[in-house]
């Protein structure tokens, strides 16, 4: 008996007992469905998190003081260090960053006010952040050298203060702790936190970006909170971080004073945790696959008993043991494969459901489809072998007598 005939015959028998076939595959459907649902949501969240980290700039090193409270004045990072860091051959971009403390910055023009934070940056910031400009330009080197009072604001602030977005060239008054200064707007950025900001409303301070020299000058402060550094080769970032720390320690004549954070490590850690959770839940879901396999085996055993006479008839007509074995094995495998395919479909739909609640796009890889179809085939074979062998070994005379 060739394969096509076995498959045809298997479908005929499965369709003849639709309800039973469905119940037999239910365990497989639930098992495969939950594995697919969980892995697709897991993979979706991983890529969503990765994308978030990409926005922050993966491979980005953050250099800061280890213990600011115990630091001596000479330990403080300064603007001069920018050039030192830039000298390292692996360094691509370096941006000193200082956030005006005293935190609140008030805007007085034309009439609206909004809590804001002023951040001092340099020309490399554009390469280090995901900041996207809607209008105007980025901060350039000469802005810092001349300590120009130029500023980049975001679209939310622009809308709030000017009731429009294209406000390049306008002037805003920024009130700091030491006085009020007029800044010329040179750029309007797209608000990356639009969702968050719309929820928090006015509570969410706006971010102003100005040349760090200008901001330092206004605060009469010469130090830098952090250096953001990107390296040419992300894989050697840890080594570069170590060397940069050494260079800074030599310059500042101290030891163990600086701390470098590698954003890639955070991403890796988050993804690892997510992977472990996904793996564990999938494992639990996989147990239901095992139960499903037992269900299929059980039904196949019942089927063989029920069809004893048919087996006898087929044998009397010339079916070899292997023909009978093949017929029942294929029936079991088709049962589990169909269950697997239904499971994949439902699992993916479930993933989309959960994903839309979690605001992520579930990801289903062709690998996971191949693996789950493979697994259901194997379950079918394992569940089918015993009943099929039992059928194949039936004595034709006994089987023909079976009522």
């Amino acid at each position, binding site marked *: *008996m*060739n394969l096509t005939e076995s498959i045809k015959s298997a479908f*005929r028998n499965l369709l003849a007992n639709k309800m039973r076939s469905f119940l037999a595959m239910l365990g497989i459907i639930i098992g495969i469905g939950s594995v697919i649902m969980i892995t697709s949501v897991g993979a979706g969240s991983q890529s969503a998190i990765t994308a978030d980290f990409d926005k922050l700039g993966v491979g980005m090193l953050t250099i800061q003081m280890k213990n600011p409270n115990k630091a001596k004045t000479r330990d403080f990072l300064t603007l001069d260090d920018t050039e030192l860091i830039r000298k390292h051959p692996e360094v691509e971009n370096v941006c000193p960053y200082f956030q005006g403390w005293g935190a609140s910055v008030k805007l007085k023009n034309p009439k609206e006010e909004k809590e804001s934070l002023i951040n001092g940056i340099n020309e490399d910031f554009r390469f280090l952040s995901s900041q996207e400009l809607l209008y105007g330009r980025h901060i350039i080197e000469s802005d810092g050298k001349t300590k120009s009072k130029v500023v980049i604001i975001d679209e939310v602030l622009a809308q709030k203060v000017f009731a429009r977005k294209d406000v390049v060239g306008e002037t805003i008054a920024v009130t700091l702790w030491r006085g009020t200064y007029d800044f010329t707007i040179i750029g309007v950025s797209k608000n990356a936190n639009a969702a968050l900001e719309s929820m928090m409303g006015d509570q969410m301070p706006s971010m102003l970006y100005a040349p760090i020299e200008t901001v330092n000058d206004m605060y009469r402060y010469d130090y830098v909170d952090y250096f953001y550094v990107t390296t040419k080769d992300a894989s050697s970032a840890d080594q570069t971080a170590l060397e940069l720390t050494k260079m800074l320690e030599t310059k500042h004549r101290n030891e163990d004073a600086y701390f470098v954070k590698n954003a890639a490590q955070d991403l890796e850690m988050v993804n690892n945790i997510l992977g472990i959770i996904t793996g564990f839940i999938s494992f639990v879901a996989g147990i239901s696959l095992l139960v499903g396999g037992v269900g299929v085996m059980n039904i196949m055993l019942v089927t063989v008993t029920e069809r004893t006479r048919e087996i*006898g008839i087929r044998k009397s007509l010339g079916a070899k043991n292997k023909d009978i074995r093949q017929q029942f094995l294929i029936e079991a495998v088709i049962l589990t494969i169909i269950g697997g395919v239904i499971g994949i479909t439902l699992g993916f739909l479930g993933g989309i459901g959960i994903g839309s609640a979690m605001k992520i796009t579930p990801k289903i890889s062709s690998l996971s489809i191949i693996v789950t179809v493979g697994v259901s085939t194997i379950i079918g074979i394992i569940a089918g072998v015993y009943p099929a062998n039992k059928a194949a070994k039936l004595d034709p005379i006994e089987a023909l007598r079976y009522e």
Partner: protein
Amino acid sequence: MIKIEALHKTYKNGKIEVAALKNISLKVIPKEFVAIMGASGSGKSTLMNILGCLDRSTSGKYYLDKVDISSLEDNDLAAIRNIKIGFVFQAFNLLPKLTALENVELPMIYAGAKHKERKEKAMLALERVGLADRIDHRPNELSGGQKQRVAIARALVNSPSILLADEPTGNLDSKSSKEIMGIFQKLNEEGVTIVMVTHEMDVAEHTKRIVTFKDGEIISDKAVLTTIKAGGNEL
């Protein structure tokens, strides 16, 4: 065609051994039509099962078309059943989910015939038993006589060397019995060798030779002097 020499068959029932066949020797030549008679338990069904390669003898030789069947493996026996033997059972033994045509196709599926060839040959076989108009009916849509005709068509479809019929009229009324016997007679006239088990004398009289069993032994082997014609009107 069929040659049996000193055939024994013993069943073990717990510790008791029961001899179902004792030293049977029998020859069936091509184009014969033999009835095997005997009371139940006389060993005639055991002989049928051995002739049909469904069972093995305990000792003795069985040659079918000069092939020594007693020495064959299970798989070879299955192939012999498939190609050389056509079975007709008392209980018809059709598969209920298949149509008449599909039932007739079954032996050819195991013979590895192609789809088209199967359809054609199955059609011819059904025509031969006068059921060309019932090919798409399932067994439960057919009368007893019609079911047995499908079974005969199925037994014939691989052009076997011998047709074995085990009480083929046992489940049929007398009218259908006559029809079926008519078909057997016609097939025999066309050259098909038939061995039939029956316990009804009036059925046996449709054949050409009657072999009678009692307690596992042949007690008589006689030619039928005046074979009754079933009068198979439409045949």
